[in-house]
């Protein structure tokens, strides 16, 4: 399954990734995951290197998990949060933002670009916004130093 034009592994220290960036998305069972489902149901395309882990609430994400994703080779992590729609927590956005900030600080200490971790609210019908956001994020990550 070697890609024709874009062959060649990325080299350490290369300016940009030579392969499509791998993006790990965190979604929520009730809100953003249905939105991501809708993107698929609507046949809105985004890169297949985008994979999703769904869990009840983004406030339950451990910063260590985010770090783990990068250590295992993901190039970007996207948190599809519930914004103000979270069914559990009125202050979900604040808590999730805190988790992101903590993980970004950990990335910074490892010399990594904090922009590789992004969070945006994706509602249960945000099919188009999701597809657009991850496409754009994949592009942005691809342009970051590998």
């Amino acid at each position, binding site marked *: *399954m*070697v*890609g024709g034009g*874009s062959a*060649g*592994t*990325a*080299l*350490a220290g*290369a300016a940009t990734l*030579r*392969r*499509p960036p*791998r993006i*790990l998305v965190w979604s929520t*069972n*009730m809100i953003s*995951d*249905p939105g*991501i*489902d809708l993107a*698929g149901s609507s*046949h*809105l*395309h*985004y890169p*297949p*290197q985008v*994979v*999703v*882990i769904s*869990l*009840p*609430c983004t*406030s*339950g*994400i*451990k*910063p*260590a*998990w985010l770090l*783990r*994703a*990068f*250590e*295992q*080779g*993901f190039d970007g992590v996207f948190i599809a949060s519930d914004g103000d729609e979270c*069914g*559990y*927590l009125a202050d*979900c956005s604040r*808590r999730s933002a805190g*988790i992101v900030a903590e993980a970004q600080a950990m990335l910074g200490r*490892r010399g990594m670009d904090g922009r590789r971790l992004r969070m945006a609210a994706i509602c*249960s*019908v945000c*099919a188009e916004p999701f*597809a657009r956001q991850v496409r754009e994020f994949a592009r942005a990550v691809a342009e970051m130093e*590998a």
Partner: protein
Amino acid sequence: MTSRRIGVYICHCGGNISDYVDVPAVVGAVRDEPDVVVVRDAMFTCSDLTQQEIFSDIVEHRLDGLVVASCSPKLHTFTFREMARRAGLNPYEYTQVNIREQCSWAHTDDPQGATRKAISLVRAGIAGTRGTRPLEPTVVETTQRVLVVGGGLTGMRAAIGLADLGLAVVLVEKTATLGGRVGGMGPMFPHGRVGADLVARLRDDIGRRPAVTVLTGAELVAKSGTYGNYHVVVAVGGERRELAVGQVVVATGFADYEPHIGELGYGMPGVLTLPELVSRLDSSHGPLLHDGRRVGSIAYLYCVGSRNEEHSHCSKYCCSATVHTALRITERNPGARQYHVYRDMRTYGRNEEMLTQSRRRGSLYLKFADDDPPEVAREHGRLEVTVRDLLSAGEEIRLPVDLVVLVTGMVARQNRELVDVLKLPVGRDGFFNEIHPKLRPVETVVDGVTICGTCQGPKTSAESVASGLAAVTHVGAMLKRGVAELDPQVASVNPEACNGCAVCVEACPFGAISMVGAPRPAGGGHRVTPAEAGSGEASPGGLVAAVAATGCKGCGACAPVCPTGAIDLAGYTDAQVTAIIDALAMDLPGPEGRTGDVVGPGGARLRVAAEAPAEVVR
């Protein structure tokens, strides 16, 4: 980790998955995964036949884990959990992997990428399943009272049905009277029953049932509690009434589409919507008049505000309602010329008979193309409709008429407050979303909230009542058991790892975590009293956090705040999520430029590939 016996089933979903994902390749890729003892593909994993096959495999291969890779977990988690339970496998040992909505359908442009992604997703599903353990739901008694929101036809019928099942009902209606839209209607298709009479009968039926409490001029303003035992607040007449209910049924109805001024002549004298025409007919007797003169000709323009960019749906009742109205006008204004300018005619079922009858009685049908709607103009004080009629070879036809009726459909009601209070799932069309239109047609993803009637999409009155009764059946089946099973996917604290800091107690929005005396790991016997523990620094042997399973809603927000990693959410444990991340990352080229050992959570040394595989993703 002890070894497991996992069965993996990959679905073709007809071709919805296998048209883009190479299913045999996925089967081949995961066949040799550790702990996997059986892998099969199936045309439809949800079919009875395949479920029976999985059932047999569970028994025969003594499976202790199950992975089904098919559609979104929103559709069939329940199906496969129940199947697992029947086969003797704990339902929580099963994992649903979404390779349709989040794979085949999202990557129809890239079959290779989709296949590769499907393999990753299934591997991740297997990795997560390795960490499952049997979970038993907490059983609680339920409140034998139902809150019905919306006192229209559907809500009234549901209230009666619930009361007849022996449940107490509180019927909350925002306006001053019960009856809703149907209450204001005259004869309705197909039987010509008068809406107001129908509603009057239901009102009498409710009056005869002391189990039903009706609150008019009332609104639901808050909901809290757990499955089967909710605490709701209803604002009525300036006061707040607090009620304990076991379930909430939402039947808040629809709104009519309001044409924009100028849309097909709307705003001109003589141009009105179907509901406006019907209301004129209902409130008068004898011939229909316009400007004091008997109406001699009418043009009905169908699909106004429907099946377009703004509202993509078909309201499916308006064709029949219009034909029915035309028949009424034939009675009241004999000889009136009636032109039906339509896009597609949907007088389904027996309503087709009305269509035939209307044609026999002089209604003329003209069909316009989707991209060529009719035009309405007013010339010399006379309305004129111009249409290119596909039934007469696209000929342009001008229809001078007395009235132009815009056949408008149903749209979702604006109900922001209720959506906020109940966290109702709203679809792209603005209507409330059921879990599955066929399989779970009145349930929502919000526990304890059932929807019915036109709040979930356009329906005829008969269909609305049927859906109200479906809600009755669903709610009755749940509440009449007397007990409810709470989702066991809740948080738990490992008391041996807890340092007693109590940060999680603050973090829990449901007050489900409290500090309790720690069971001493070795020999034990000494239980620390609150006074003892509160006197000094938290330490092992002091108080530890404990989660009340009945209060925990399973959000997991307590897990990240724990400084010692002592909290896990069942189904999403640290070990499981970590394994899932690793499995998803497995197909990646190595983490170039970031090699070396990294200290992971809990001090574990993470394995980092020293050498990147030479394979390129796509």
